[in-house]
């Protein structure tokens, strides 16, 4: 199956020739993005306000200063999976021949444009691999997702600024993970060296700047090598599948893990692998739309049935499901793939500092004890 944005991956040749590479001086970044924007809409990480710490991805407009020196608070998930997305529109129309009869006109809302996300991190892109399995591998294919996924390019930054919440190397990724990237951005002294990784990404390289000097190419290579050697995080998630089974009905365990949880749901909204959604109708007069919007398994209403019954009535069951989904159920369903990219956002954004690594480690302890 076609994987959009799928790259030559690790076998990208470390070609010493400078064609296919560009250097963007730090003070010319905005201009480079303006040139890029002439060809393709670009999303960049920008600060939400001069005195605000948060960084989110926005469509680039002249005058914006991309924030490249730290991971974004909110991820570029909504480029491909919008927070609210119209699935179809409908209209009730009176039949002119028979005014007593009302017909329903139903129209699919589709269509996606090519977009380039500039300045994402490897973990941001990795998250979409989880989505791909669910939305595109069937048995049902979600074309709303697929269209956008295939039309989105990623210019990804070699990651140098991990913090203590990062653990990408523990879940099969790493700070120099090229998987899923179309352009590869390496921050060097005075600017960025950009190179094409995919056929679709290549044509945009020359737009971004002049070919880099030999020294700049060498410096970029050194940074890439250092990054690929760096091991970020020391979580071992291997015992989680068994641990989840062992601990499933251990109420005290789950209680102790999430006692302080506020059920705010931020862990799911900032998560690159969380894809749950709701479908609702909105209507005004005789027309309306059916839309999907991000939902969160941390909310009580998520599984609350009309009868009043709720299979996950407290935050214990809800958090158990979240951890289980990422580290146990997803690997069970999808050939061992962990539905976590190790970006650490759920830890960083949690108002009460719940650490998913600690929960997974503790699950494992029980599994180890059994063995």
């Amino acid at each position: 199956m076609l994987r959009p944005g799928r790259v030559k991956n690790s076998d990208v040749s470390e070609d010493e020739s400078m064609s296919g590479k560009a250097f963007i001086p730090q003070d010319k970044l905005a201009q480079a993005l303006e040139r890029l924007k002439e060809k393709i809409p670009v999303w960049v990480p920008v600060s939400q306000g001069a005195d605000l710490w948060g960084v989110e991805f926005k469509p680039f407009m002249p005058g914006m200063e991309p924030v490249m020196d730290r991971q974004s608070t909110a991820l570029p998930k909504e480029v491909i999976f919008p927070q609210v997305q119209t699935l179809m529109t409908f209209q009730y129309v009176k039949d002119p021949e028979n005014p007593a009869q009302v017909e329903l006109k139903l129209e699919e809302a589709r269509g996606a444009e090519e977009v380039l996300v500039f300045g994402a991190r490897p973990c941001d892109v990795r998250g979409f691999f989880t989505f791909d399995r669910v939305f595109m591998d069937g048995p049902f294919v979600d074309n709303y997702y697929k269209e956008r996924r295939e039309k989105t390019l990623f210019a990804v930054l070699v990651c140098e600024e991990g913090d203590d919440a990062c653990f990408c190397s523990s879940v099969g990724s790493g700070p120099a993970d090229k998987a899923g990237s179309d352009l590869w951005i390496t921050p060097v002294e005075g600017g960025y060296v950009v190179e094409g990784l995919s056929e679709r990404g290549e044509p945009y390289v020359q737009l971004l700047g002049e070919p880099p000097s030999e020294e700049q190419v060498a410096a970029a290579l050194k940074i890439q090598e250092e990054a690929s050697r760096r091991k970020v995080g020391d979580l071992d998630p291997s015992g989680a599948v068994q641990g989840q089974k062992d601990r499933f009905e251990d109420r005290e365990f789950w209680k102790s893990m999430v006692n302080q949880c506020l059920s705010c749901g931020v862990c799911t909204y900032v998560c690159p692998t969380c894809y749950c959604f709701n479908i609702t109708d909105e209507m005004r007069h005789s027309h309306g739309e059916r839309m999907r919007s991000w939902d969160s398994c941390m909310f009580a209403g998520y599984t609350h049935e009309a009868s009043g019954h709720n299979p996950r009535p407290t935050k214990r069951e809800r958090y158990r499901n979240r951890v289980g989904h990422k580290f146990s159920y997803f690997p069970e369903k999808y050939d061992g793939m962990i539905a976590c990219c190790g970006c650490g956002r759920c830890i960083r954004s949690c108002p009460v500092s719940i650490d998913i690594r600690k929960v997974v480690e503790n699950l494992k302890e029980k599994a180890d004890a059994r063995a």
Partner: protein
Amino acid sequence: MHAHNPYLPEVATVQEIIRETHNICTLRVVLNDPEKMKNFQFIPGQVGQLSVFGVGESTFVINSPPTRMDFLQFSVMRVGEVTQRIHLLNGGDQVGVRAPLGNGFPLEDLKGRDILFVGGGIGMAPLRTLLLFMLDNRQDYGDITVIYGARSPLDLCYSYEFQEWRSGGANLVLTVDAEHPQWQERVGFVPTILREESPSPHNRVALVCGPPIMIKFVLFGLKELGFEDDQIISTLEKRMKCGVGICGRCNMGSKYVCLDGPVFTCTQLREMVPEL
């Protein structure tokens, strides 16, 4: 692999609404596209998403069997926003149907077996689909015993066709929770009646659907009678949205009720995480 848009319903017209009880109605709909209606295929036990555009979608079992395709039928209990609106529909109204979804009953495994249906309240809806399918293929099955209970005679659905079930070859045992004037049939909770009837587990499959508390005690009863886990089949209900295994809310561990279910054997249920 399904190539079409799995979220896009077929527009259908309500043909008739039958008032079953004070809070359950049965909706008969026909897809507006005659070709699609003609080619509609499904397995008893599969479900559909029924939409009232502007209000929303909910999941219901297709309540008419594939052997009777004049319309698609759904029995709906009034409990929430969408079902409230469904109860206000009239003949001629336009609705949306996304179906069939889910796995359905394992028809091949049921052929040549004796059958026991145990239904409670609205839980009779999915069993009725299979029951009618079996009555329409009566020669394929041995004894068909149906134990169907509700709180009162006024809460029993499909009472207008009990005669047809009986004459079609089903041993129908009806029960209500308490004595009621003019009630000629049994009185008592479904699990009690099951013990009284005590159908033999030999070469028999039990199909159970009803409120959780009924299922719980029926399972105890079936165990006592000697039924093994793989002889017991149930069909589950969860809050669903997409119905196609994507949106994430109806999972029990790595299984999705909308996709891997809603029909599971007791053996399968025991292997899944206990999150009913």
